[in-house]
């Protein structure tokens, strides 16, 4: 059984480069060019509508929470505000980092910067880490965004629902970035021309948090932190719940997104918060398709993909036992059957990487 080294400077990453697993050509379902062009078409309207709803709800819920502060009635308002701040910001950060949410570039950039601050990711660093995640999705030692490493650290996964590991990692990193720019690991994927920007962004974030803490101290109240900062903890659960499902329990070190990514049908509220990233195989295969066209892309290519999970609960029922198996046996992963209409997985090609799999129930 192979022990995995997830460090971006470690031997697994070096081996992936040597063997050609890094920056490889990935499997794509064939889609006629005209259909794909239509799916890729950009539009401002859906994202403007969703952004007005999002920010409008955030203002209304925060106002309710502040007005009812000191009574139990404020709790539902903060819970709702928190999930929009600490979870919807993840999907806005994601979609705007691809530049696909809006047609107009400044709109993508504005929402990206706000979302990056809320989700506590340096906007200059994470643009690049996410590019690497798309080049080398779940390639050990190459992908800086592997949410569940093997063997899974369950305590960390549980704490992640409350944002704790992310925030603990973010604060010292932000201060370090503010003082001296990107770390050695960050320098492996952020080009040198951007190192100054990483530092500038970290200085701005540090200043905003310092001002918020100063206001809280001056008011002798945590209320300012309920609006800025703390919702990253008390509202993180939804983006962790949906994020774990993206790749959890599936294969690593493969170059077919059907083997390492999961599509899950979700309720409309979760899809709004998650901006349709539940169509995750589709998103990885065709990252140029905007979030609002992913349901159409799904209909176009589903004949070539494993059947999606029918709900969040069903997907967890599939993933969780697989993660538990990985505690004892790191090489274990779920392998979903393809429909008869699909092009088969390339067994020969993936054999070395695949280890041992069982078919998903």
């Amino acid at each position, binding site marked *: 059984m192979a022990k995995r080294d997830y460090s971006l400077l470690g031997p697994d990453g070096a081996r992936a480069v040597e063997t050609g697993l890094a920056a490889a050509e990935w499997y794509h379902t064939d889609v006629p060019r005209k259909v794909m062009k239509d799916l890729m078409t950009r539009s401002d309207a859906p994202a403007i509508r969703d952004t007005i709803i999002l920010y409008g709800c955030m203002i209304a819920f925060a106002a309710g929470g502040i007005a009812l502060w000191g009574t139990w009635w404020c709790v539902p308002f903060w819970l709702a505000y928190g999930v929009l701040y600490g979870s919807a910001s993840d999907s806005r950060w994601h979609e705007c980092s691809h530049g696909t949410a809006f047609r107009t570039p400044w709109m993508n950039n504005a929402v990206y910067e706000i979302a990056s601050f809320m989700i506590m990711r340096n906007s200059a660093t994470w643009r690049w880490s996410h590019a690497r995640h798309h080049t080398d999705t779940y390639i050990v030692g190459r992908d800086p965004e592997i949410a569940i490493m093997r063997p899974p650290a369950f305590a960390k996964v549980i704490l992640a629902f409350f944002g704790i590991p992310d925030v603990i990692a973010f604060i010292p990193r932000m201060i370090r970035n503010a003082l001296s720019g990107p770390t050695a690991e960050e320098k492996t994927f952020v080009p040198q021309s*951007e190192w100054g920007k990483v530092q500038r962004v970290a200085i701005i974030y540090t200043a905003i948090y310092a001002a918020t803490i100063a206001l809280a101290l001056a008011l002798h109240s945590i209320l300012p932190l309920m609006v800025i900062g703390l919702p990253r903890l008390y509202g993180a659960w939804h983006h962790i719940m949906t994020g774990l499902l993206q790749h959890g329990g599936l294969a690593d070190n493969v170059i077919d997104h059907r083997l390492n990514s999961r599509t899950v049908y979700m309720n409309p509220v979760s899809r709004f918060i998650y901006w349709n990233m539940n169509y995750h195989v589709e998103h990885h295969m065709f990252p140029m398709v905007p979030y609002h066209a992913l349901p159409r892309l799904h209909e176009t290519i589903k004949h070539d993909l494993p059947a999606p999970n029918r709900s969040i609960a069903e997907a967890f029922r599939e993933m969780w036992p697989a993660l538990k198996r990985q505690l004892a046996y790191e090489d274990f992963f779920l392998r979903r059957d393809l429909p008869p209409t699909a092009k088969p997985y390339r067994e020969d090609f993936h054999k070395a990487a695949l280890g041992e799999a069982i078919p998903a129930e």
Partner: protein
Amino acid sequence: MPQWIRACATDDIDEEDLIRFDHGSATYAIYHSPDGKFFATSGKCTHEDVHLCDGLVMGHLIECPKHNGQFDYRTGEAKRAPVCVNLKTFATKVDGDDVYIEVP
């Protein structure tokens, strides 16, 4: 010694679209702009080894299909992260119904 070679017919590329064109060991992208002109660049993104032909043309920009980096295909200028290095461009001309590019 640069030479003009035929790349495609004018109606092989829809307006605001591109195609891939291989010649010898080199690969190129040929663009048909919304104002009816033709342009040519090297066929692969400067960020990673990815063909641009599956990308999206929007006005005078080509967006790479892998990480959504953008170039102005008229000048090759890198316009959006993660691309930082400009694309090489090549001269084009239309003769009758054919598009030619000048290759090195």
